[in-house]
Every structure is written in structure tokens, then in C-alpha cells.
């Protein structure tokens, strides 16, 4: 699966071009379930001690371990969710189980066509021990732990000398770091366990920009260009990417319509909805929900829906709807308003149940309860993601 992943979007030369870059980095594909690594540079593989086959197709969390800080993992999780860059110190583990600090910089790569995130690029620069905690005055316990004290240094240098560092800037940074150990590091230690130096930050940023220019270049040749900044989305009714991601977790058939746009077009349709109705996503987005109605649909029911929507109230109806192939089905439909973080009704969510499927599952939740749980999940997602969470 690995070669196709990259080649689909980039021309065949991209792999060689990436291989020529000296940096430690991986490329992941968020569109594939599990968000796997689809490319790992030689430098990266040397640093972590895995071979390529062991890494491709796996998720980046395989490099994390017991002492990897949860707060850092959360930073990265939120950056992925919000599809933005992040630069953070992270404790990762090699295959042999030894931990090492590195500067982790992650950047999304967008499709030029529709603004979707195609890949994430993650550059990893090992951090020299300059600002490592001194460990002086700490107990023996800490020295035994790989994370702290001398144990860490030994591991770290072993890794750098033998395998990774051929880079002179990096050698230089480390040499000067050795001189300044243990004097005034205490403050840094308590603030952040391992702060990267400016040299390392610059190195990470430079690597990112090299990789991105390779990707951009080789995507242009395929006519499916990628870009580093999300292109301005034109046209109405595009949801934020992060909301899209959250909604994808909800597996039932439902649509979201935008209450602020004229005629309330559909701005999100779940996989199950497409399966139920037989339409493709692009045929559905931008439509008003009435397109599911047909000749035998009861106009009184339609009016009833309209009234509830105008009054911003939830309602449940049984309505005759039509699939793309014009076959009809009784839709047990629940509609509810959904407010954003400002407290305004921003969307309506409509959850469909094909009435024939209503009487399954005796041990699970009732279909009615599952509809309501979709309403709840959508309300939580919309509220949380419209709070202006890009605080850092």
C-alpha cells in the first residue's frame, strides 16, 4: 500500500527526491484509517532503529512510550485535529526501548483543489543535552530511569555519535552544550523537561520547508497539486476540517444543514447517509433536504418540518423519501437545531432511519435513542470546535 499512497498524488520521482534529504522525517496519510506512516526517511529509520517495513503502515504513536508526556501527546492530537502546525519537544523511544528527546515539528499538506488535508509531514530533530535537566541533587531513583539524569545522556550520545549525526551544525551545538551542563539549567528543567535550542528549531523548520517544496514540486507534475497553506475555499457550505473529522466518528445516517445560508443547504452527509440514499457526496452537498422528497411525499409532513425548523425546535416525523434510483423508503426522521459556541442556532442535524431497519437490535440502544445520541454528539462537536480553540 505504501508506494501507491504517495504516487497517487505525487509523481514517481518523489520518493527518490525525498530519499536525498538528510533529515529525520516521516509522512503520514490522515485519509487512511489509522493515520499510518506512508514514508520514513533513512535518517529517521537510523535514529529509531527500525527497518522500513516495521514502520510503514503503522501509526506514529508506536514511537511513544511510558515516559512520553501526555500533555505533549495532547498538543499533537489537537494540532492534527485542527490541521495546523506544531513544534514541540517530545520523548520518543527507539526499537531497543531507549528513550530520547527530540524536537517534533508537524505540518499539514493541503490539496489545492478542495483544501482537504492530504498528508502530515513530521520532522524530528534530536535535542542536544544543553538544556536537559541537570539531575544534580536528585535521588538515585532518577538516575536509574532512562528518562532522567545520566542514563539519558549515555543513551543519547550513543545514538547520536554512532548513527545519526553527520551534520556539523548539530555536532557544534552539542559540543557547546556539553560545556554548559549543570549550572543554570534548573529553571528550564522545571518549565519544560527538555527545551530545544534555536539551532534545533531552525534546523527543523528548514527541513520542513525542504520537504514541502519537494512535495509541492512533484504534485504539480500529476495535476493534483498540494499546497502548504490551505487555499481559500470558494463557494458556500464548507465545514471546518476539524468539524468534519469529528463528525466522521458518528456512524449513523445523518446530514448537517447550515442554518445561516439561504435555503439551508446540506454541508455534511455521513457515509451511512450516502449508502442509504445511493447518492455521491458531491451530489448531496449544497442541496436542501427536500431533494429526497418525491411525488408521493406528504406535503403536510413537509410543512410540519418547515414549521419546526422556523421555530428552531426538534421534531420527529415519518416521511416518504426517494433514493437516487427513485425507489422510495419510509424515513423515520429526527431533526434538531444545533447551536454554536456563541449560542446561536448554526445548523440543523437530520438523522434518518429506514423504517424497515427499525425493529432490529433488541439488546442495544433503541433506534430513537441512537438518533438522540447523534444529536448529542453533533452538539458537543459543533460547540467545542467553534470556541476559537486555536489558542497557542
Amino acid at each position, binding site marked *: 500500500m505504501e508506494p501507491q499512497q504517495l504516487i497517487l498524488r505525487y509523481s514517481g520521482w518523489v520518493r527518490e527526491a525525498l530519499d536525498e534529504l538528510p533529515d529525520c522525517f516521516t509522512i503520514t496519510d490522515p485519509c487512511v484509517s489509522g493515520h499510518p506512516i506512508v514514508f520514513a526517511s533513512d535518517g529517521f529509520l537510523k535514529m529509531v532503529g527500525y527497518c522500513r517495513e516495521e514502520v510503514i503502515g503503522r501509526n506514529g*504513536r508506536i514511537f511513544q512510550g511510558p515516559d512520553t508526556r501526555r*500533555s505533549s501527546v495532547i498538543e499533537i492530537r489537537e494540532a492534527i*485535529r485542527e490541521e495546523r502546525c506544531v513544534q514541540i519537544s517530545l520523548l520518543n523511544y527507539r526499537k531497543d526501548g531507549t528513550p530520547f528527546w527530540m524536537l517534533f515539528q508537524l505540518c499539514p499538506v493541503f490539496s489545492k483543489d478542495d483544501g482537504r488535508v492530504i498528508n502530515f509531514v513530521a520532522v524530528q530533530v534530536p535535542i542536544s543535552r544543553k538544556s536537559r535537566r541537570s539531575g544534580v541533587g536528585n535521588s538515585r531513583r532518577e538516575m536509574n530511569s532512562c528518562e532522567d539524569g545520566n542514563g539519558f545522556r549515555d543513551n543519547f550520545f550513543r545514538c547520536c555519535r554512532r548513527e545519526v549525526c553527520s551534520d556539523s551544525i548539530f555536532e557544534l551545538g552539542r559540543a557547546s552544550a556539553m560545556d554548559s551542563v549543570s549550572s543554570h539549567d534548573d529553571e528550564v528543567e522545571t518549565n519544560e523537561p527538555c527545551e530545544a535550542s534555536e539551532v534545533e528549531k531552525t534546523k527543523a523548520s528548514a527541513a520542513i520547508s525542504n520537504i514541502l517544496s519537494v512535495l509541492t514540486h512533484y504534485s504539480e507534475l500529476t495535476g493534483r497539486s498540494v499546497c502548504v497553506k490551505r487555499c481559500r475555499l470558494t463557494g458556500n457550505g464548507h465545514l471546518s476540517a476539524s468539524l468534519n473529522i469529528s463528525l466522521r*466518528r458518528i456512524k449513523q445516517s445523518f446530514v448537517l444543514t447550515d442554518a445561516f445560508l439561504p435555503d439551508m443547504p446540506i454541508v455534511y452527509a455521513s457515509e451511512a447517509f450516502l449508502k442509504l440514499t445511493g447518492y455521491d457526496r458531491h451530489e448531496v452537498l449544497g442541496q436542501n433536504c427536500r431533494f429526497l422528497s418525491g411525488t408521493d411525499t406528504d406535503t403536510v409532513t413537509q410543512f410540519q418540518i418547515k414549521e419546526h425548523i422556523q421555530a428552531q425546535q426538534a421534531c420527529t416525523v415519518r416521511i416518504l423519501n426517494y433514493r437516487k434510483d427513485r425507489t422510495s423508503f419510509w424515513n423515520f426522521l429526527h431533526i434538531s437545531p444545533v447551536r454554536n459556541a456563541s449560542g446561536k442556532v448554526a445548523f440543523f442535524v437530520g438523522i434518518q432511519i429506514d423504517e424497515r431497519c427499525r425493529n432490529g437490535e433488541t*439488546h442495544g440502544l433503541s433506534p430513537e435513542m441512537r438518533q*438522540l445520541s447523534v444529536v448529542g*454528539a453533533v452538539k458537543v*462537536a459543533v460547540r*467545542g470546535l467553534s*470556541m476559537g480553540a486555536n489558542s497557542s
Partner: protein
Amino acid sequence: MMLKIKRVPTVVSNYQKEDAEEGGAGCGRNCLRSCCLPGSKLPLYAFKKANKLVCEKGSFDSVNKEPPVEFLDALLLGEWEDRVQRGLFRYDVTACETKVIPGKYGFIAQLNEGRHLKKRPTEFRVDKVLQPFDETKFNFTKVGQEEVLFQFEPSENNHVQFFPNAPIDLENSPSVVAINVSPIEYGHVLLIPRIFECLPQRIDRESFLLALHMAVEAGNPYFRLGYNSLGAFATINHLHFQAYYLATPFPIERAPSKKITTTSNGVEISYILNYPVRGLVFEHGDNIEDLSNAVSESCICLQENNIPHNVLIADSGKRVFLFPQCYAEKQALGEVSAELLDTQVNPAVWEISGHMVLKRKEDYEGASEENAWRLLAEVSLSEERLNEVKELIFEAASCFNNVEENKVVAEVATTASSEDLGEACEDGDALKGSGEPAMVHV
């Protein structure tokens, strides 16, 4: 001396306000007591007790993996929305404006003008973390059955089980999840362990494990559980945990930490760094129970030493934050500035974790990182005091005993003021031995 503060009590049940007027005779409102209980049914969710690891390797992108919404999550959201549509809540919390306060830490503010409307302040005693259960005051057996969402219990076998219509078996001492009719966010519920045993607000091993299981079962990092002890802004002395959904990280979850020690069964305990409220964070452990015991034993130690505290279960049960606090005591002693008191923000677990519910529009509009920080800094113990409290915990909690190099001298425990000791002993089993180490002075 008895320390009290005045505050508006939170109305968690629609049957709470009438409580004072109620004569106590005949009920007829479908409550959870013997008058109404016979024949009643409620959904029952039985979780598997498996000793699985709490911490699989960190979840790099649990969001992009898009696991389907978990069953408990779906049950809770569905039942809660059902109560929304039945009009059981005092207000629509999703109509309350909320935002992330600009700045480095990402404090969260909500404007909630309806939560405390029309309530008279009541006096609360804040200098005793353990107080006996008082049958005459409001407790959760008095809520309406429609306010209870489901029963939550360990499964008999090793599988998750769900019974949409299970009888409420008094003998079996069920734990239940009920709505809070004054929610501070969507899905705000109360977990009431063994409700019919009428336990006072006091952590025990079994109850805390139940709460931790709930976080693990929900499997949603944006669903967190919290606990307030008496003296740390709990208002109802009937054992309960709170929980709600908020799909954004709490500032406390982003705070770095510094490891202090690892217990014999692998639970790591750290100081929280770079955060206005000092506290401890517990994580890892060989299984859920180890993590749970480390926290509950710490809480038990704080209770017995009369130190008010708040607990946050975050990260789907992977991390637990523990904050000993001293705000209510300062408030009772008149040491909190009028400006802070005017905001009427009670720094309980959610506020301490960085989620501020504000009652006045001007406070919401003017909310800044500095203000939030200033308020929370008042809640925090001093560095020395936290260190003392930590030593106290390490000495008392038996699961830490095997930890090497913890030959700690618990000076604090021996410096109980004799004046307080007499009163402390009234509670019988409430306070053992060490007396009251002078409720935290900064």
C-alpha cells in the same frame, strides 16, 4: 471556631428547591425512595472489569483514527438529549456563550447568567472535609426517576452488557448516573455510587474505581469526571462525581509535569508545573485498579487530615489530577479580595482545570488570562505546603510503602493544633489520629 462561607447552592435536581417546604409526608412524584421505587425500571449498563492497561502507548491521533462513538458515550448522550427534549433542564446550556480566552494557556470561559438566578445564598461549613450524612438535607434519593439516566455497574462476566429495562434492585446497591438540571456543559451528569447507601461526600477505593471505570468506558477524551470534597466547593453531602463533555482541551491537560516518584505497581506521580494551582498528577500503573488505588488512598489521606481537595479524571482515565486547595478557608477568614468575590466564581474542580463559568456579562467580556490566573492562584497551596501535603500522602498511602527512598518525615502530621483536635474527634471515625493540620495556610 467554625468557618463558614455564604454561597448560592447549585440546583442539581428539579426537586431540590421544594425541599425546604416539603413536609416529608407522602411523595407521589416518582422519586428514588421506598415510596415510589417498587416496580421501577431503568436502563442498566454493565462495564467489564478487565484489568486492562490504562495506558496503551499514547494515542498519537485518537481523533484521526475515528473510532466509532463508544456505546457508553452513545447511551449517555442519547439519554441526556432525551431529557433536553423533555424539558427537564433549567436552561439550554448550548445557548450559553462560550469561548477560549486568548493567550498561552487557553482558559475557557462561559457566560451563564441563568445558573444561579433567584437563589438566596446559604451558609456552608468549609472547615470540615468529612461531615456525617444528614437525612434531613437534600440528597440524591430525592431526585425524580426521570432525572436518572441509567444504572452503572461492573459486569458479572467479562463483557459489556446492556439491559434497556432493568429493575432497580435495592439489595444490589446500584450506582446511578443522573442529570444535573443546572448543567455547566452538554452532558453534565452526576455519578452517584451505591446511591441507596447514602454515603457522605467522601472518597473510598471502590467508588473512585467506579468513577475511573466510567472515564475509561466512555472512551472519549473530552468526557471528564470531577470530584469536589466538602470545603472545596461540594454543596451536597451525598457521595457524587460530576462529568460533562467539552470538546476542547482543558489548560490543566496541557500543563507540563515533573515526576516525583513511581509506586511499586508502576503508578507515576508528578508535580504539575507552569499552572496557577499546584497539585499532583497520577498516571500509568500496571492496571486501572493500581492507578485508582493510588489516587483514592491519597484522597483518603487528605480527608483524614482535613485537607479540602478537588480531583479531575482526564484523558479517558489515563491521568488523574489532584488539587489540595485552601480557597474556601481563605474566603471564610476574609482573606480573598472583594474584587474576586464579586465574580462569584467558586473555584471547584472545573474552574481549577481551567473552565470558568461566569455569571456576569462584564466578567465574561473582560475575561483575560491574567484574571483567570489571579483567581486560580488564590486557590493554590504554597509550594512548601504542597510539599508537606505530598509527604503526608506518601507516608499514609500503603501502596506507596514499597517505593524506595521515601523515608519521609511527616512533620505536618504531628503539628495538629490541639484546639481543633477536640472538635475533630466529634466525627468519630471521620478523623483518625493526626488531627487537623490547620487547614492549609499559605
